[in-house]
């Protein structure tokens, strides 16, 4: 009798396991006609003003835009469920858990900070849930992790660091009057995964090009004082300063370096607070003329003729809608973060989701992952100019968009211009820093 019970129990367990194994993923009929997207950004804390809020605005604008046209494929409405990471890693993890397991969202999208994205990506992937990273750039999010359900159309930190160094090297001889190998460069960075990732690629690219690395140093973004860092920089006498930070550390560093007499030929920031030109101008006025930042291209700065037909209109839509958030910020001062939210979310809604529904039977994590791996958008096929093709499983950066690129922006006549790469350049670079700049080498 006992043996019979064991056999029956094993048979039942086997049947259940078989049913689970062979059962199809929930179909679109089973899932209904609304797609729940958890949109996770920092609405409070220092990251909010350093770009997170702007990316959220971009994401919200494109979701609203798509919903006004009936939703994905004209019939699947998006339900946006917001989460606030509060600029804290533990809060980001808790909010992601809430969105995924309480709100039961179909997709977790967003994430501004790399410090949040690094632990989140692995956690979400282990749960076999689909994650779409619009903003955080650190290589460490994907590097050697072989993630299956996490995708990032956004540029990665390795490209940020390379782009800025290559740009400077390209103008070294003719504008800075020194061969690249004689150029003295310093790298400073906030010591989280974001800053450390960009600084690491700055360093390897500078060494590859034979530049003289005179200082490389990290600091905490919460440090109340950076004057000792400025003193060390003055002692190191760099020609070019590469800086990766968030905020308020960027403003603090600029203020203290200006007061302590740091002078360089070129100042190159990398994203975050460096790309919030309106805020920089509020603090420093026209003194930021000639400053650089590196970020994915800003859609509104790209000549629409270089993009697939119709994308220019979408960019105009983005600029028009952004007015409801910031009516006084001119078109060419809008931070690239708005484009990151708008464009990268558009790739999900316009490319991945329709294919998942039409070809793979729904918008479960497996269907979405398969659809994402089939994404094949050529260069010029997105509002930010880059194409989209995700690195396949087994690749050291599986899930990262292999066609993304970073652009170097410069503040020219008070507005952002793309100055690198040349294919999207909208202005001729001003190097060295103009004599009017308090940071200009004299």
């Amino acid at each position: 009798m006992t043996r019979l019970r064991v056999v029956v129990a094993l048979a039942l367990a086997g049947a259940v396991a078989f049913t689970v194994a062979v059962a199809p993923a929930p179909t679109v009929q089973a899932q209904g006609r609304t797609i729940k997207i958890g949109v996770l950004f920092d609405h409070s804390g220092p990251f909010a003003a350093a770009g997170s809020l702007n990316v959220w605005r971009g994401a919200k604008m494109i979701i609203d835009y798509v919903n006004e046209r009936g939703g994905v494929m004209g019939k699947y409405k998006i339900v946006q469920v917001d989460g606030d990471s509060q600029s804290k890693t533990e809060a980001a993890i808790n909010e992601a858990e809430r969105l995924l397991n309480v709100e039961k969202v179909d997709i977790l999208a967003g994430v501004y900070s790399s410090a949040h994205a690094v632990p989140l990506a692995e956690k979400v992937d282990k749960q076999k849930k689909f994650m779409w990273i619009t903003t955080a750039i650190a290589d460490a999010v994907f590097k050697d992790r072989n993630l299956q359900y996490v995708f990032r159309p956004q540029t990665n930190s390795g490209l940020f660091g390379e782009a800025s160094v290559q740009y400077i090297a390209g103008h070294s001889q003719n504008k800075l009057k020194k061969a690249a190998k004689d150029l003295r460069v310093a790298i400073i960075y906030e010591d989280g995964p974001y800053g450390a990732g960009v600084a690491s690629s700055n360093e390897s690219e500078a060494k590859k090009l034979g530049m003289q690395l005179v200082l490389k140093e990290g600091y905490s973004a919460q440090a109340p004082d950076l004057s000792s860092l400025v003193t060390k920089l003055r002692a190191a006498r760099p020609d070019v300063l590469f800086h990766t930070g968030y905020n308020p550390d960027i403003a603090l560093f600029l203020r203290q370096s200006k007061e302590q007499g740091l002078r360089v030929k070129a100042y190159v920031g990398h994203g975050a607070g460096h790309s919030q030109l309106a805020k920089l101008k509020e603090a420093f006025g026209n003194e930021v003329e000639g400053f650089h930042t590196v970020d994915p291209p800003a859609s509104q700065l790209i000549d629409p003729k270089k993009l697939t037909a119709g994308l220019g209109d979408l960019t105009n839509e983005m600029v028009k809608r952004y007015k409801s958030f910031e009516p006084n910020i001119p078109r060419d001062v809008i931070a690239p973060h708005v484009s990151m939210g708008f464009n990268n979310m558009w790739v999900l809604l316009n490319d991945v989701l329709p294919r998942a529904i039409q070809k793979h039977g729904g918008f479960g994590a497996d269907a979405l992952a398969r659809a994402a791996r089939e994404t094949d958008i050529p260069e010029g096929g997105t509002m930010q100019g880059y194409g989209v093709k995700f690195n396949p499983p087994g690749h050291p950066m599986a899930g990262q968009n292999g066609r993304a690129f970073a652009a170097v922006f410069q503040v020219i006549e008070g507005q952002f211009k793309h100055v690198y790469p040349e294919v999207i350049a909208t202005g001729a670079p001003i190097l060295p820093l103009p004599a009017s700049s308090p940071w200009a080498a004299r």
Partner: protein
Amino acid sequence: MIDPIFLVEAAVNGIMLGGVLALLALGLNLIFGVLDIVWIAYVDLVMVAMYAVYFLVMVYGWPIWLGGLGGVVVGVALGILVHLLIITPILDSPPVNQLLATGGLLFFLQSIATFLWSTDHKSVRVSLPSIELGGIFVSYPRLIAFVLSILVMVGLYLFLTRTFIGTAIRAVSQDRGAMALMGASPQKIYVVTSAVGGAMAGVAAALLSIQYSVHPYFGAAFGPITFMICVLGGLGNMVGAFIASFVMSEIIAIGGVVWSTEMGYVIAFALFIVMMFARPGGILAKRQ
């Protein structure tokens, strides 16, 4: 080997930073010494007063000195309000409840500031030159902040030692019960102390406004270090806090130049931990 001139510059910067830290620490310590309650949210009161300076100067166009005075008035008002609304009801509660209440105030202030003024960083733009002496740069705003900090601290010292109310404050800090037995009203002294502590927060706000952007999370940068300085100097010990401010700031500044910025903070915090074992009552405490 780093040029000695840069070490001198680092030491000067350390002194400048120490002045501002001392101002913050003395306000917090004064309140603790008299009320026996740590206002964890003290630097967040400074943040609110910084917003006041920002709006008065940048939005309403007041001159910076008048805006700074406005910040002091706001600081005084906040000090009194916090005492009457939050501290008075919990004066006799267990210390952990008091800590939770002032900790709750911290989150309340950060949230209300985010709600009212958004997370944007707001800057009071004052254009002041730097002074260069033999290759050493000294920032004018920091120098002004340092000198005014010292003057305010001297003023506080004179207030506490040369006035009747100051003497009463010191008496309460020494023996709260005895003062009540002599017919004095500790409650009145508490309110005055909170107002003076608030005024110190207002002065700090005015001086920090010309050096830092203000945002709702300003307290995260200065709150922990201010609290550490108070503990290192001995909670309630004004002279100890003054010395501890300069010890910490010099370690941060010189350590940052000799090793690295991060290492400067690591050494300062390591010293704090060691001192907590060696002298838990603060650097000026007598060994038990």
